[in-house]
């Protein structure tokens, strides 16, 4: 069955309302775990009923009412179980509590809860997509290619961890707020990255995780407009995702940046990313996401690969490296160095990474070395490194790309 425009609109509306409804229900009943289940049931009820009965005039109120009814049933059951004398429900459980926080804060608090550092990253990802993203367990399970029952368990365990951590449903302040926001951004970054696997598996059934990550990051940016890194991450996602179509060939094969058809890049998305970044950088609170976005912007704004402003990219990597001791940054910086000062200079930096040891057995180190060796004219060594990298990667399209590179070089040597 094809989705009609109205179905799509209804789905968008539901997913937009999901965190607002959950925030309201948690505020009223306090029990995050049960409220989350109740809202999920309300969303499913809406998805089945609205297409036939029409969207209610006040969809948000409708959802809150249905979810609240489920919650009252839940509380009654719990009370009956705990207290066989069937005493009436405590009034405080049904009376809405007047909070100082606004609805917007509620959504942000939900983000904070779902991305709490007590959770493993896979649990945080799943819970965020369900509680804030408004996706069903089945949709999330399909996106990650695991059975629905397994995903349901992951979500339920995540909620148990939140309960056990005793974190209250409230807005953290000061440095803790910034710290918790960092965890949220990291989880959204992971969801975005996971979206790249869409070339694997039946695409039509798979949710566009990158799109969902962008939607949720947009939401965080709206709720925390003063946080420069939230803006930076949104810009980074837009500027990276702008190349999506050009990034893979007709058979799902990877196409490296230098060989992509740049006319396929999404100019509207690039403009939006650049605009966000330009509005953010002057605020002076520069962080790693903003710098990575700035690097992506330099690539995106270059009409041809040969015209890439590598000195500027190198300057940005210098800043990034000073900010965080990250071997991946060192590796990417080595590429920029090679493009500015020649492949030998880049290869020298890789020796420092060999000694560093953190990227030992990481395919990216071999892949970059292969590329720089090729640029330096060391074909035999480059072939060996491409092959070594192919043996280490866990991505099928990437392995195929690396093996093809090795084969191409072999043929050019013998021919």
């Amino acid at each position, binding site marked *: 069955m094809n989705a009609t425009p109205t179905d799509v609109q209804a789905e968008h509306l539901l997913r937009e309302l999901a965190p607002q409804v959950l925030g309201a229900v948690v505020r009223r009943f306090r029990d995050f775990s049960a409220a989350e289940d109740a809202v999920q049931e309300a969303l499913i009820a809406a998805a089945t009923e609205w297409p036939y009965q029409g969207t209610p005039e006040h969809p948000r109120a409708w959802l809150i009412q249905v979810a609240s009814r489920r919650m009252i049933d839940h509380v009654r059951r719990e009370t009956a179980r705990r207290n066989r004398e069937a005493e009436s429900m405590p009034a405080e459980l049904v009376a809405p509590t007047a909070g100082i926080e606004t609805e917007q804060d509620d959504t942000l608090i939900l983000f904070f809860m779902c991305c709490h550092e007590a959770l493993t990253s*896979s649990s945080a990802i799943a819970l965020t997509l369900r509680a804030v993203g408004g996706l069903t367990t089945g949709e999330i399970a399909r996106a990650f*290619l695991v059975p629905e029952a397994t995903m349901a368990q992951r979500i339920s365990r995540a909620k148990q961890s939140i309960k056990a951590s005793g974190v209250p449903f409230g807005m953290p302040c000061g440095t803790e707020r910034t710290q918790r926001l960092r965890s949220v951004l990291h989880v959204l970054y992971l969801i975005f990255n996971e979206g790249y696997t869409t*070339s694997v598996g039946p695409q039509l059934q798979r949710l566009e995780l990158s799109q969902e990550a962008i939607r949720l990051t947009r939401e965080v940016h709206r709720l925390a407009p003063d946080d420069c890194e939230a803006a930076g991450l949104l810009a980074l996602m837009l500027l990276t995702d702008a190349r999506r179509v050009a990034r893979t060939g007709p058979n799902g094969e990877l196409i490296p940046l230098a060989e992509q058809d740049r006319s396929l890049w999404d100019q509207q998305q690039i403009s939006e990313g650049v605009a966000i970044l330009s509005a953010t950088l002057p605020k002076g609170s520069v962080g790693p996401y903003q710098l990575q976005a700035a690097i992506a912007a330099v690539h995106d704004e270059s009409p041809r690969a040969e015209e890439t402003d590598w000195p500027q990219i190198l300057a940005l990597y210098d800043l990034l490296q000073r900010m965080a001791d990250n071997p991946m940054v060192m590796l990417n910086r080595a590429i920029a160095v090679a493009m500015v000062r020649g492949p030998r200079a880049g290869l020298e930096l890789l020796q420092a990474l060999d000694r560093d040891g953190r990227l030992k057995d990481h395919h990216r180190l071999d892949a*970059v070395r292969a590329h720089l060796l090729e640029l330096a004219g060391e074909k035999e060594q480059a072939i060996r490194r491409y092959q070594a990298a192919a043996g280490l990667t866990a991505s099928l399209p990437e392995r195929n790309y690396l093996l093809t590179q090795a084969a191409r070089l072999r043929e050019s040597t013998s021919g």
Partner: protein
Amino acid sequence: MKYILMMNCPRNAYETFGSMSKSDIQAHLHFMMNLNRSLKESGELVSAEGLADPRQALVVRAGKDGTPVTDGVFPEAKEFLAGYWFVDVESPERAYQIAARASAAPGPGGSPMNMPIEVRQVMSGPPQDLL
């Protein structure tokens, strides 16, 4: 990250297993059921299957016109795949931990069988942006 944990057994293992005492067989099955249940509850299980007796197995190759040509299993093969777990875990260490637990499944007299479990990563990772 996804891993497949492959439990290999010697070719006579199915016979050995069948000749264990009733309580030993039950203890073994109980152990495996518990393992699978706990992997499901931890949200890590993708799938798990046990394979039928290798004596029923056939080796198939494409014939001249693509039709299947069957043969008995390799008589020289010492080990067979007895079953596998397909898990989605946070780290390779976690996959090794699950494999070690499976390897310790009880055999005759309830002592751990220490079966070799081959742990292989499934190629499901996201590709990174290439040069």
